[in-house]
C-alpha cells in the first residue's frame, strides 16, 4: 500500500516534469476527448477511434455551407496550428496547438461553445462528435 502511493506520487512528479515537454496529457482534456469518443460510438457503431490526419484536413480545408466570411478554420485561426490568428474584428487568437498553448481544450463549456459557434460559422452546421474528436486529436498531436 505504502509502495503503491509512493509510486503514484513519483509518477505524478515525473509526469508533471515531463508534461512540460510532452504537454499532451491533461486529465480534463482527456476526459473531453473521451466524452466525444463515447458520443461518436453512440452516433456510429462502427466508430474506429479519432484520426489526427482527418483533423488536419478539417482544419485546413475550405468549406462551403457556412457564413461567406469564414469558409475555413484558418480564416481566423492563422494558417497553422502554431500561428496566432485574428478575429474578423481584429482580436488576436492564440495558437490552437496544445504544445503552443497548453491551456487549450480543458474546459468543457468553452469547448462546446466554440465548436457550436465555429462549426456553424464555417460549415453551416454543427460538427459531429467524430469531427470534434478528430480536430482535438490533431491539435493535441501538434
Amino acid at each position, binding site marked *: 500500500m505504502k509502495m503503491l502511493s509512493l509510486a503514484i506520487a513519483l509518477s505524478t512528479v515525473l509526469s508533471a516534469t515531463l508534461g512540460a515537454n510532452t504537454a499532451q496529457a491533461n486529465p480534463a482534456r482527456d476526459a473531453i476527448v473521451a466524452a466525444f469518443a463515447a458520443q461518436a460510438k453512440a452516433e456510429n457503431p462502427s466508430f474506429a477511434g479519432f484520426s489526427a490526419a482527418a483533423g488536419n484536413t478539417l482544419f485546413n480545408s475550405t468549406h462551403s455551407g457556412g*457564413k*461567406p*466570411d*469564414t469558409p475555413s478554420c484558418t480564416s481566423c485561426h492563422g494558417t497553422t496550428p502554431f500561428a496566432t490568428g485574428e*478575429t*474578423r*474584428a*481584429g*482580436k488576436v487568437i492564440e495558437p490552437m496547438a496544445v504544445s503552443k498553448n497548453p491551456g487549450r481544450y480543458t474546459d468543457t*463549456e468553452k469547448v462546446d*461553445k466554440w465548436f*457550436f*459557434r*465555429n462549426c*456553424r*460559422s464555417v460549415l453551416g452546421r454543427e460538427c459531429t462528435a467524430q469531427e470534434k474528436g478528430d480536430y482535438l486529436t490533431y491539435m493535441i498531436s501538434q
Partner: protein
Amino acid sequence: MPDTEIKDHKVKVWDLPTRIFHWSLVALVMIGLITGFLSPEWWMGVHLWAGYGTVLLVIFRLVWGIFGSEYSRLETFTFTPREVIAHIREVFFLRPTHYIGHNPAGALMIFALIFILVGITLSGLLVLGGEENQGPLAGAANYQVGDLAAGIHSTLTVILMALIVFHVFGVFTEIRLSGENLIKSMIDGYKRVPDSIKPPTHRDARPLAAITAMTGFAMISGSLLWAFSTMPPSGLLKMTENEDFQTECGDCHEVYHPSLLPRASWTSMMASLDDHFGEDASLPPKTAIAITAYLSAHAAEEWDTEAANRFRNVSPEAPIQISATPYWVRKHNEVDADIFKRKGVGGKSHCKSCHQDAASGRFDDQNIKIPKE
C-alpha cells in the same frame, strides 16, 4: 521745434493695459474661431483655453473700464442714443466731429462686442458642461441644456464675426476720414489731437483698485464655478463591470460601452447572436440572458453623455450597428478613409484606437488621438 508748425498735438489715449487687452483679445478670438470652425475635434482643449482667456480679458476690460486711465473708462465713451445717431449722420456726410477716445459708433461697437463675447463664453461653458460633460458646469447642465446652448453659441459667433467685419470697416472709415492711423494708435497708444480740441483733465489709472476688483471678481466667480464643479457630472452611471460581458464579447472584439446603443438594439442583437455581423456568436442561454440584462440596465437611455444622446438614434437599416448610426457616419465622414486602414487603427470597429477614453463611454474631443500609421 518743428512741432509748432503742426496744429495738432499728440495725446496718449490708450494706456498699455488697454492696448495689451485689445491685441490679446484679437489673438484669442482668432484662435477661438479657427479651433471652433476649422480645426479637427481634438483641438477642443485649445478652444477651451481661448474661451477661458477671453472671459478673463472681458472681465479685465470691464474692471479697467472703471479704474483705467481716462480714455479707457467706460463713462468716457458712454453716449446717449441721440449722440450715436448724430455721429452716424455726421459720418454719413463725411464730416464727423472729432473724438479723442472712442467715437459714439466705435463705443457702441465696444459694448456690443463685450456683450456678445459674454454671451459666447457663457453659452460655451454650458455646451461644455451639457454636451461634453466637462468643465465647471458638467454637473449643473444636462445634455438638453447643452444642446440648446450650442445653438446659441454658434448663432452668437456668427453675429460676432459680422461685428468684427463692421468694427474693422469702421476703423478704416475713420482712418480715411480723419487721416489718423488708428491701428498705430492701438499699438503705441498715441493719437493726434487738433489744437482746437482741449483734452479733458486726465485721470490716471488706479492699478491697485483694479487689481483688487479683479481679484475680488475672480474669487467670487471662481468659487461659484468651483461650487458648481463639485457636482458630479450629470448623466454618468456608476457601472460595475460584468465579467460575462467583458469576456464573452471581448473574446472576439473590442468591448463596446453599453451606452452606445439603445435598449431595443441591444435586445435584438442579443436575440440574433447566431448571425452576429456575419458570424455565429451563439451563447449559452444563461449567459445570453445575463448579458442582455446588463446591457439593458446600462443602455443609451440611461446615460446623458453626448455619445448616448446621439447613438439613441440608430440606423433603421442596421439598428444594431454603432458605426451605421447617422451621427457616427456624419462625424467620421470627416476622417479620411485611408486612416481607417492604418495598422494602428484597424478599421471602423476599433473605437479605442483613436478614442482613448472609449471604455468609459465619454468620447471626449480632447481624447481623440489618431495613430500615425
